[in-house]
């Protein structure tokens, strides 16, 4: 393998991880603040993708790019208000059961409405094409996707680190009782975080619908690697999740590049195993007293 080819694979691997990132960030946020392991997170991703296909004929890809994530976020708030809110203070196994059930209901509902075969959907003509830099090739659509993902990460970071809203959320992650004692109700923040996290999953669905196959089980497909990213990155750590996503993409890509593609999925679990062995809290995991 030539050096340029290897370099191209490294670059591709780094970018590949970004797709998990949008899912993993939401998972991490919702778990950190509410203590809910949201197994239904993949379902929201799938709903985002299906909504895009349903809405595109009317409002185009651009329209559904805005409308679908918002609709998914609103659905998220509804579920947070009606269901999640009852499980914030219970044993996590209950919320695990709840979200597992939700994921199954959602997948089966999609199967009943749209059928099991994948639906057809393509990249909008304006976003087709490739980017060539010397001998490097990359798809134009994926570069756009990267820009959107980086903008989301930057926006989320700003929101959590630099605003009053973010300060309350971060305090709530560490010590919800103290936040309550200071006279701040966490309830609206919980809803907002659910909207953000679930909306991001919906956005990932919109962005990936043109290049992945859209079928009812697509949520179950992406949720496992997303969890691996969260675990490697460490709970409660924003940059941990970002670094882990990129690392997971890189490891997978390089396994394919060097000819061990059969082990590319196994490799990310091995990576998780090694990280947990040496850093049980994940790469950048913070100490969260109530989860220890």
């Amino acid at each position, binding site marked *: 393998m030539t050096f340029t080819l290897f370099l191209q694979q490294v670059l591709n691997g780094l970018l590949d991880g970004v797709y998990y990132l949008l899912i993993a960030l939401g998972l991490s946020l919702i778990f950190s603040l509410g203590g809910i392991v949201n197994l239904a997170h993949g379902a929201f991703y799938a709903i985002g993708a299906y909504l895009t296909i349903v809405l595109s004929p009317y409002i185009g890809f651009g329209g559904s790019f805005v409308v679908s994530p918002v609709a998914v976020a609103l659905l998220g708030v509804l579920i947070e208000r009606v269901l999640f809110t009852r499980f914030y203070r219970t044993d996590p196994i209950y919320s695990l059961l709840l979200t597992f059930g939700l994921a199954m209901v959602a997948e089966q509902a999609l199967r009943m409405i749209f059928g099991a075969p*994948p639906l057809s959907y393509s990249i909008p003509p304006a976003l087709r094409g490739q980017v060539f830099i010397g001998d490097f*090739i990359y*798809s134009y659509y994926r570069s756009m996707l990267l820009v959107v993902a980086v903008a989301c990460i930057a926006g989320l970071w700003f929101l959590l680190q630099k605003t009053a809203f973010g300060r309350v959320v971060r305090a709530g992650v560490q010590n919800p009782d103290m936040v309550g004692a200071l006279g701040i109700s966490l309830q609206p923040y919980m809803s907002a975080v659910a909207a953000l996290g679930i909306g991001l999953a919906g956005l990932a669905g919109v962005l990936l619908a043109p290049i992945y196959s859209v079928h009812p089980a697509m949520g179950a497909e992406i949720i496992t690697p997303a969890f691996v990213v969260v675990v490697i990155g460490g709970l409660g750590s924003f940059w941990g999740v970002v670094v882990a996503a990129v690392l997971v993409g890189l490891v997978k890509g390089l396994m394919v590049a060097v000819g061990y*593609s059969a082990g590319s999925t196994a490799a990310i679990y091995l990576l998780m195993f090694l990280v947990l062995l040496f850093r049980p809290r994940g790469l950048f995991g913070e100490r969260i007293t109530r989860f220890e």
Partner: protein
Amino acid sequence: MTVKDHLSRRGLLKGAAGTALVAGLGMPAIVRAQSDVIRFGHLTPRTGFLGPLGEYAVMAADLAVEEINAAGGILGRKVEILKEDSVNPQTASTKAERMVERDKVTCIVGEISSASCLTIAQVAQRTKTLFVNTGGNSDALRGKDCKRFMFHVESQNSMYVKSVGRSFMQEGLVKGKKWYSLTADYAFGHDLLSVAKRFMEANGGEFAGDDLVPTDATDFSAYLIKIRSASPDLVVLNLAGAQITNFLKQYAEFGLTFPIGGFGFDTALAWAAGKGNFVGTWPVVWHHLLETPGSKAFTEGFVKKYGKPPENQAWGDYIALKIIAQSMNELKSTESLQLVEHWEKGAKFDVLKTREGYFRDFDHQLMHEMYAVTALPADKVENQWDIFTSSGPVPGPDEPLDAIAATREENACTFPA
């Protein structure tokens, strides 16, 4: 995910127990009435990466049973079909056992995964119950793993490779050429790859590269970069299920233009890739554009009932049930062993093609015509279904039907006693 499996199994057990209780208490009348019907078991993956194809199998099975009953049933009795999701090889085996022992089905039909076919076949052989495989392709099922009580309506991998291989030879893509293959990393893919390599060796071509793809892979960018740098004469896919759709979408996305084709294929996946993304030449056992009267009637009936055309997997389950019903009526018996002997003697059936089909006695493979379909250019596509053109039947009219199947020497089968 282990947690998921564990939870779902427990949930399923509870649900099943509850249903059984209600059924037992509440509806004795139905239970009595059931002694008058002939029961078939239908197992096929409804979830997972083969689920989309399983759905067509189930729709076709329902249609076939409806037609069989409308025509008077079997020996004057109505046919009832028990359909379940086979999930994975272990679950498939458990469910097959329950269907035979508790529900007293006369035979089992279905399946798509070669691995699950094998576990169902083991149950069928042990209980001496007929199993007709409608979707498992691996040569091993007709070779070292063959069973006397298992028959195959689905073509074996060798037939897929040799039928589309002819198209590749005609286009000059074999002799002295380099192929790059991507292969699904499980029984079906491994089997297909070895048949494909045998084909290339015999015909003077070689492999520029071959990668195994984990069955849960969704992103192919790293593979596409490798393919581009290898610049092969033909890209060959030995993938299955939604992965084919994913690959085709991303192949178009990266703008690669090497000729492409594959040895494993289903029309539903081409429909999902959509016009423009769907490219290449592929083998099928059947497709909805066939002009024979039988195929036209089947397609019409299917469209009328479900509002969309059937794909190749639908043909398999439909024709299997039709053949079973026809043979049972002819034999005036529902005994598995009698059917096995009848078919081994070379009974012929209408399989909706230009020639009648029959099961080969030494490996129980259905001998029938296959087709190679080629994607239409995007500007020639008129609707979302008719997106390809078809070769004539393979083998051609003046060749024997077994011309494309593995020979006895290539794939030896000794039925266990």
